[in-house]
Every structure is written in structure tokens, then in C-alpha cells.
């Protein structure tokens, strides 16, 4: 896939995220828009995961710790052919399998997530199993910056370094906002890089909307042999829709009919 095609996918994904959030009248709009470029690069470039190999023990694993941004994951999985995209018309509807967090009832989803601070420990277990079985699959987990105060993350960060899990890559969607306000005001976790480095991780910063930079970062894994890798992806909450960008009201805001039309117009024009 060319850079241009990949960029077009991000744009289409953003439109679909909004479409299904509007359809469900619920969703995590800002965070889904901030992490979608990361998911795009992972699923369309980096990960060895497809509907065909999903039951293979050798597939790469992607575990979304920030489960609330499930709309981003679902539109990518649909695009990859895990399930028909029209299924997403049932998102959050009565008796649908497509709930507001990742669930294994949906093909392509590795783990049921939603409670924060759970993705990294499970990913550590996956990566440890790969080492024990001498398999070369890799494990990726996407975390929000707002979930970093969960203590289980730091417990798992210790274990990952202790067992030298260089087949593990954690990505932080650092949009610097969470539901209450800026992460710096709620519970400052900066400097994230120094904290993880002191825990024994190798860390890289990347512009989380620069597809080329994301590709290069993932291409260079592991950042250091014998160490787990952390990508701090600097992102903008609500990215791609100007009136949503950096506005905490869009954490789980649902666009009105007019706002949805405006957003689609802006995204279409950017194509």
C-alpha cells in the first residue's frame, strides 16, 4: 500500500468512526480519532494478522487496552474483512455483539477489554508465552495516556523488563487529555519516557498522525535487543475534525446531524 493509499484509509476510517458513533448515538469520538492512524499502520502495514491466520498460534497479537475507543478498532477490523462492515449498524443496539468495548464475540478481537490497566499485563503474558515456546510472533498493546495511573500498568512494566520481552511493544496514545481535563492536571504522568526507561524499557517518541513515522518506528522494533519497546505517540484528541480537536467535550460526545455533516465535509475535502 502506498503512503497515499494509507492516508486515504485513515481518512475513510475517520468518516466511518463518526458514522457508527452517530448510528449508535454513543461512542468515544475524540480518542478513536486520535488513535486511528496508529491502528491503520498496525493493521495495514505492521501486524501479521488477518482473518485467514487469526486462529494461528503464530499470528501477531494486538490488544487494545484503551478499550473504550472500540469504534476505531471495529472499523479497521471490518475493513480487514473480519466481519461485514454493515454489522456495525448494530453497534450498541439491543442484542448486538458489537458492544461499546472490544469483545471476543467479534472476530478479530483478541481480548475483552474496557477496564483500564488490563491490556499491558495480558500482553506481557502473551509475549512471555512466545518466548517460552520460542515463537517469533510479536505483541502490541495500545494504551491511553489517561490510564497510566492504574498501578497494574507499572506492575506489568516491571515484569516485561524483568523477562526482557523485546517481542512486546506498548503504544501510548498521548493525546494529553482525559475525561476530566488535561492529563497533566488530573494526575501528571510526565515524563513518561524517563519513567519507562528507568523501568528498563526502550522508548521512542513519534508523531502519532505521521503514518511514515509510525511505520518507521514499528519497523525498528525492538528498539533495543532484550528490552520491551514503548512508542509514545503524540496525538490530537478528535484529530481530523477541526471543531473536535483538543476539546474534552468530544471525549464521548456524539455529533448532531449538522455536526456530522460538517465533519464529513471537512474530511472529504481533506482527501
Amino acid at each position: 500500500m502506498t503512503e497515499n493509499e494509507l492516508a486515504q484509509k485513515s481518512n475513510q476510517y475517520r468518516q466511518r468512526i463518526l458514522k457508527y458513533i452517530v448510528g449508535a448515538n454513543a461512542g468515544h469520538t475524540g480518542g478513536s480519532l486520535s488513535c486511528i492512524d496508529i491502528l491503520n499502520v498496525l493493521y495495514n502495514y505492521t501486524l501479521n494478522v488477518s482473518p485467514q491466520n487469526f486462529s494461528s498460534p503464530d499470528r501477531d497479537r494486538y490488544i487494545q487496552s484503551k478499550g473504550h475507543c472500540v469504534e476505531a478498532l471495529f472499523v479497521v477490523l471490518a475493513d480487514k474483512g473480519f466481519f461485514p462492515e454493515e454489522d456495525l449498524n448494530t453497534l450498541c443496539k439491543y442484542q448486538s455483539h458489537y458492544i461499546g468495548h472490544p469483545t471476543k464475540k467479534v472476530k478479530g478481537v483478541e481480548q475483552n477489554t474496557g477496564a483500564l490497566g488490563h491490556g499491558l499485563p495480558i500482553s506481557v503474558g502473551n509475549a512471555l508465552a512466545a518466548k517460552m515456546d520460542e515463537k517469533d510472533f510479536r505483541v502490541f498493546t495500545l494504551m491511553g495516556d489517561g490510564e497510566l495511573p492504574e498501578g497494574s500498568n507499572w506492575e506489568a512494566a516491571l515484569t516485561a523488563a524483568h523477562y526482557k520481552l523485546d517481542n512486546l511493544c506498548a503504544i501510548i496514545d498521548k493525546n494529553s487529555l482525559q475525561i476530566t481535563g488535561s492529563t497533566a492536571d488530573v494526575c501528571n504522568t510526565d515524563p513518561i519516557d524517563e519513567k519507562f526507561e528507568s523501568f528498563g524499557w526502550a522508548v521512542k517518541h513519534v508523531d502519532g498522525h505521521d503514518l511514515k513515522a509510525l511505520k518507521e518506528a514499528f519497523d525498528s522494533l525492538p528498539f533495543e535487543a532484550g528490552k520491551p519497546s514503548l512508542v509514545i505517540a503524540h496525538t490530537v484528541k478528535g484529530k481530523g475534525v477541526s471543531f473536535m480537536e483538543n476539546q474534552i467535550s468530544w471525549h464521548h460526545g456524539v455529533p448532531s446531524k449538522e455536526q456530522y455533516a460538517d465533519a464529513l465535509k471537512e474530511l472529504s475535502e481533506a482527501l
Partner: protein
Amino acid sequence: MGSPLVESQVGAKPNLEVFSSTLQELAETDKDIVAVTSDSRGSGKLVPFGKKYPKQIVEIGIAEQNLVGVAAGLASAGKKAFAVSPACFLTARALEQIKNDVAYSDNPVRLIGISAGVSYGALGSTHHSLHDYAALRAINNLIVAAPADNYETEQAIKLAAASNKPLYLRFGKKNMPLLTTDEEVPFQFGKGRVICKGSDLTFIACGETVYPALQAAEKLRNEQGIEATVISMHTIKPLDKVLLQEIAESTGAIITVEEHSIYGGLGEACASFLLQNQYNKPFKIVGIPDEYTVTGSQVEILDHYGISKEGLSNTALKLLGKM
């Protein structure tokens, strides 16, 4: 009727030791078996296991949430993970990981709660697990069991290794005499084990309380001519409803016995079933009342709350109107 009571402690080992020796035996041929510990290999009797199979033990350190999360990740990648930690910490601190990462995500972690109930005795309430049945019973997709003796323990571990289901097993530290039954049926989760039969009343017990229930039954028979059935209801969830229904119809009274709070455990599980199935004979739940326990050893604490030969036989006599 009734089987001879084994008063002798000869050959009796703590269930915990049988857990570790059985796991070690299985690990020799099954290389997917992994013990996951939270600085608990000593208290889990897993030091020999770790020495013999260093590649099949994962030390997490004292971090129970991570213990369960990592075990879930190991299980989802095909390992048979036995997450071993004191029951008090495993089922309270890591409850959300048990709920989400194990049960809800259907990752077949074998959760092993060691030194359960009041096994830690005078170390006090931080180290007691009197809430675990209640907390875990309310979580979907989790077998909850407390084997009574070395036989049940060995069978439970073998079944746990062979089956691919999330489960919680709880063990104490005390030597547990082997219980013998008139007709041994193959051990199965969700199938109670009838230790002896008698029509006057029934003790339904689990874990380490089955033995004092059996002692009480023998005392009642010898001293009062009262014939009691004793059931090791090792699986608290799913409960053996077929056996309960049979007992409800045939017995004169029911006493449940558990090393757990009287709230939310085996007793209330039985009560719920019985009340909804037309049982209207005497019924009593024996367990730890709603308080932080008296100070003492495990035996002293259990004695204090009537979970003993004397205490249970007195409870039976009262329930039957003979005291």
C-alpha cells in the same frame, strides 16, 4: 450405615502439598503447564517444582493483579497457567483481573488460592479469605471449588489441567485425612461426593470443614443413634443441584458447613436452591459470622465458631430439637 471414620493422621498431607506434587507430576509430560507465582513458591510448596522445571515457573513478584493478568495472557497463548497466590490476596486484590481477564475473556487460568479461609490463623483478617466464594460465585464462567482431602485435591488438579476452563481452587495448609466412601464415583466438578449416608440429617460441607462434619456425624451416631449423611460439596459453583434435590427429599434436616463468611458462600448457595425447590425442613448455615475473627490458630478459630466435632454435633442436636 456410614463409612469408618479415619481418625488416624497416617499418610495425611496438606492438600496444598498434594496440589504441588500432582502439578509436578503432570508437568513432567505436559510442557504447557506453567506455575505463576507472586513470591509464593514457598508458601505454595512449589520450590521443588521450580527446581525441577525452571522453565515452567514464572515468578511475578508481589503483584497479584499482574499475576492474574499475565496468567491470562499466558493462557490465551496456549499455556496451562496455574496462578498461585494466597487466597486472601488473589481473590480480593486481583478480583477485577479474575472477572475480566480470566472469566469474561474466557482465558482458562487455573486460579489456586493457597492458605485459604483462616489457615493463616493469628496473622489476622488481612490474611483470611472469608469472602472468596461469595465474590467469585457472582462472576460468570468460573468454577469455584474447595477439595476436602488429598484424593479430591489430586483429582481436581488433574481435571483442571485437562479441562480448558477458568477455575478457582482453594486449599488450606493443614494435614487432611483421607476420606473413604462406600462407593467411590469418579471425581467431577459440580458433582458432590457422598462420604457417608444417614437419614436423620445431612451435613453439606466443603474444603477442610468436611472432616469435622464427618467427626460430628460419627459422634452423633455413637452417642445419640442419630444417622447423618455427610457430603463433600467440593464444587460451590456450579452446585450439584441433582444431589441437593435428592437430599432435600430424603433427609430430616440440613446443616451446611464452610470456612467462609455465612454470607454468600456454600450455605447461601444451598439455601437459595432449596428455598426455590420446596424444601421446608430445618436448615442451618454454619460458617464464620459477620465479624473479624477472634484471634487464634486455624483450629482455635474454627472451634470458636462451632466448626468442630463438638460444635457441629451440638448444632445438629439443637436443629433436631434434641438439645
